[in-house]
């Protein structure tokens, strides 16, 4: 990394670089988190469907969302 190049950037240019990184990371992490919660819901649904087919009852309500 060219440290000298960073030095020549203005305060707001440095802040923008950070904001862009945070933005990209937040987008990725939020996408992963949402996909994870959706996977949990699917998992629950699969289990409930199997139980229902076997004549059982679901064990708990679906995952709540805030």
């Amino acid at each position, binding site marked *: 990394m060219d440290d000298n190049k960073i030095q020549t950037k203005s305060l707001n240019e440095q*802040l923008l670089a950070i*904001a862009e990184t945070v*933005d990209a*990371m937040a987008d990725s*992490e939020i996408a992963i988190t949402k996909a994870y919660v959706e996977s949990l819901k699917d*998992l*629950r649904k699969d*289990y409930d469907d199997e139980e229902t087919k*076997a004549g059982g009852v679901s064990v708990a309500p679906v995952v709540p969302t805030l």
Partner: protein
Amino acid sequence: MQGSSSEVFREASNEVKSATRPSPLEGFGAEAPATLETRIAAAESRFKKDRESKALWDITIGQLDAEHSAAASADVAKVSAESKARQILAGRQAEQKIDKLTTAIARGKRVPLTAEDRALVGSVVSPEQKMALAQGVLDQAAEEQRQMQLRAEARGAKPNESLVKEAGLMKRASEAQQRQAEVGLGIVQILKTEPLTIEGLRQATGAEKRFRRAEGRRAGLFDQLTVRFGERYPNRKDELAAARDRIDSELQSKRDALVIATAEVIPQEQRAQRAETAITMSGVGREENKKVLAAELGVVEIPQSDGSTKREVEQGSLLDAQITAEASVAALNTSLAEAIRAAEEDPRLADKAVQIALERHIAIRARELATEEIAAAQALAKENEAVQVAKEKAQVEGDAKKIARADAYDKGLKAVNSFLGKAFGMVSKVGGGLFKKDRRVEVKLGEERRPKRRLRLSGWRLNLQS
């Protein structure tokens, strides 16, 4: 036999018309045509006896009189206008001639005068008037001299060097200032856009480069001006330096006033309440599972002296990140609104508004991320409990297939969690992750570069003092 009244009138009318027209033979020695008066008299004698035509005759004579009077008036007006125009022209020519002659005399020229000239200017060039005119010329010369002296004084220590260069510098500095104000107001418009996205912030930061360039140009030109004025007016150097200092410090005060509002400190009771809500909202029922979730979110139970426990949100935890980010966003919203208002009044503050907008963006994303991660932690706690319940129920029932289904559910949950770990690991390799426990966004920035002009100016000031 008399004709009808209309025939009689027509005849009389034709007669009258021919009487008003000049004869084509007029001036060629032909017999003079009957005058208007004789024609009228003839018409009168012809119609006087005819009672029926009396009224028509009156009308005819009335028209004839009116036409006659109008023609006479027009002639008089024409003669009068021509005469007046000639008088005015003559008057102007005379005035011009008098001016020319008296000016020439006052300047001491010998002007040969014609008799007509003498008639014209004779009354002007009395000795007193000659003196007055000469005095006027002397006064004018004195005034010119005074103006020259003022110009020389205005040029300070360089009386022979005109102020054109300084005027040019001032014009360019003023243009740069104008440019800076325009760019600054453009930035304000971008920042006022709702919602303000990262793309908007890129545009604002790009515009800020132009803003800084204009600021650099303006400051450089004012530096040059200050130096030039300092050389021209050495005895006013301190005054100039003080003025520059005042302008700089006024701007700095305005910038300093635009601090980021301190995020409100959320009281412990409120934080504990948030922890309670987060756990209740998760839908987790068993106490041991609640404790696991509480630990994941960063809620700690502190034993009290009376044997009870008090919940608190741990510093650096997920919940702490969410609460802190919410308080920061609220504070930054206020700060940004103030900065935009200030930059609208003084566009030189636009860069400060951009800085606050960027920091607000980071805080907003942090809040969003913390909220999503809390939701995920709650969902996981709920599913762990569901698996636990499913396995216990299957064991109690002793149904092998049910046990197998509960085990599959458990394995599926473990697989999803493993995937999550890998996915976050991938993100972490790129950016380090944001909101796992004890991992917080830390914004480390280099020192803001100050314009070189400050150094130059202070150097110059040192020279002044030495």
